[in-house]
Every structure is written in C-alpha cells, then in structure tokens.
C-alpha cells in the first residue's frame, strides 16, 4: 500500500510538470501573439500617418 502512495505521487509529479509547462507555453504564445498584433497595428498606423514607427512610444 505504501508503494502505491509513492507510485501515485510519482505519476502526479510527472503529469503536473508536463501539463503545467504545456499550459504555460500555450498561454505565453497567445499573449505574445496579441502583443505582436498590437505592435504591428501601431507601426502601420504610424506609417500611414507619415510618422516614424515608434514615435508615439511602445504599445
């Protein structure tokens, strides 16, 4: 029975570790993609207005 407790914790550690890292990657990819979209729209808006990109600071 004691062996099963060790086994239970062993498998939990593995799956929690992998799933936590997978979730972190997916969330971070979404965040960075949104940031790129914001930066690109800011850059293109500034280009359209004839100002150098970044003249209004970061988004």
């Amino acid at each position, binding site marked *: 029975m*004691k*062996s*099963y407790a*060790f*086994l239970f*914790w*062993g*498998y939990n*550690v*593995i799956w929690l*570790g*992998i799933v936590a*890292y*997978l979730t972190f*990657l*997916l969330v*971070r*990819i979404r965040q*960075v*993609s949104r*940031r*790129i979209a914001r*930066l*690109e729209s*800011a*850059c293109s808006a500034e280009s359209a207005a004839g100002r*150098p*990109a*970044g003249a209004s*600071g*970061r988004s």
Partner: protein
Amino acid sequence: MAAGDPVRRIARALPGCLLAATALAMPGALGLVFLYAPDEKVMGAVQRIFYFHVPAAMATFASVYVLLAGAAGYLWTREERWDRLARASTELGLLFCTLVLVTGPIWAKPAWGVWWTWEAKLTTTLILWLLLAASVLVRSYADSRELAARLGAVLGIVAALDVPIIYKAVDWWRGQHPQIFRPGSPAPLAPEMKHTLLVCLLVFALFYVLLLVLRIRLAALEDRVAALLERAGDPEVTAP
C-alpha cells in the same frame, strides 16, 4: 512563403495533431502501466515509476543533444534560428531532467530506504540539471541577446559533455543505480514490461516533439516582438 504554402499549413497544424496524438496515446500508456505490465518480483508496484522515469531520462538526453546541435549551429553561423532551437532545448532539458530527479527519489525511498544518495549516476544527473538551470538563468540575465545566446550555447555544449558520463556512470564507478540497458546484452525485461516501456517511450517522444515545436514557435514570436520594438526604437530590445 505563400499563405497557401503546404509547408506552412503543415507547420500550423502540427501542434494540434501532436496534441491530439499525445492525448490519445497517454491513456493507453497509463492503461498498460497499471493494467498490463506485471509487478516486478522484488520491488513490487513502485517499480512502475520506471515506465515514465526512463522515458523522461531519454527525453532529457534527446533535449541536450538537440541543444548541442543548436549551440554548435549558433556558434558556427550566428543565425537566430539555431539559438531558438538551443533556447527551446535548454528549457525542455531542464523540465525533463527535473522530472527525472523528482521521480528517481520517489522510487529510491521504498527501494533503497533513502530519498537521495551521492551515487555517481545521481550526482552527474544533478550536475546536468545545474548546468541547464545555469543556462536558463544566464540567458535571462545577460546584458544583450547576442551575449545570452553565446553564453547559453557554451553552457549547452558543457551540458552535452555530461550526458555520456551519466550514461556510463554505473559502469565506471559501480553505483547503486539499476542498469537495465547494457550494450550487447538482452534487456532483462518480461515482454509485457518491454511493450509497456516502448509505448511510454513513444508517448514521451510525442510530448517532447510537441513541446519543442511550441517552444520554438514561442521563441520565434519573442524575436518578432524584439524586432518590432527595435523598429520602434525601444530600449527594451537589448534585453533577451
């Protein structure tokens, strides 16, 4: 590359396909571990940690050798894509090495009666973990992206030198760690155990490729942000 490019379409669909394949294969692997594989005679149920401890170790070694390829490629060509591969592999190596170092003691406590012993294989694996952790920290705190990539690459090459030492540690220093796979000798595993281990290796290989693809994609997006900020003249770009 054109929007309808088949290579691009495959690259976009790859993470989803890998995730679906892993999600399907994982319950199968767990079923084999708990329902199909027999209990080991001496250690009993706790030996079943072996089915995920060994694949995690294999994934660590794979990560470190991919890291070596990325590091050597970057130092040779100074191209960003090699650094992205090295960055991704460093993190994955650290993740899988952490799993190895956590699951090992969970097995060792009931099998050896201690959580940890300064045995050669364990100690050299801990050194690998420290090297990978140092590489992640150096990349985070370096003054410039170029310096981060260079230092990370050098630490990656040093980490790769540790892998053969880990593999041969039991032969060279006669440690306590079980040696299941010896070159030239048949594996002392029952067929059910062998099948279970092979399926678990496949599941970890799928997980490894999935995480690598996602981490490289994230690194490419982070580089794109840095390029956009650079275009905007933002001082933040000097940070990695």
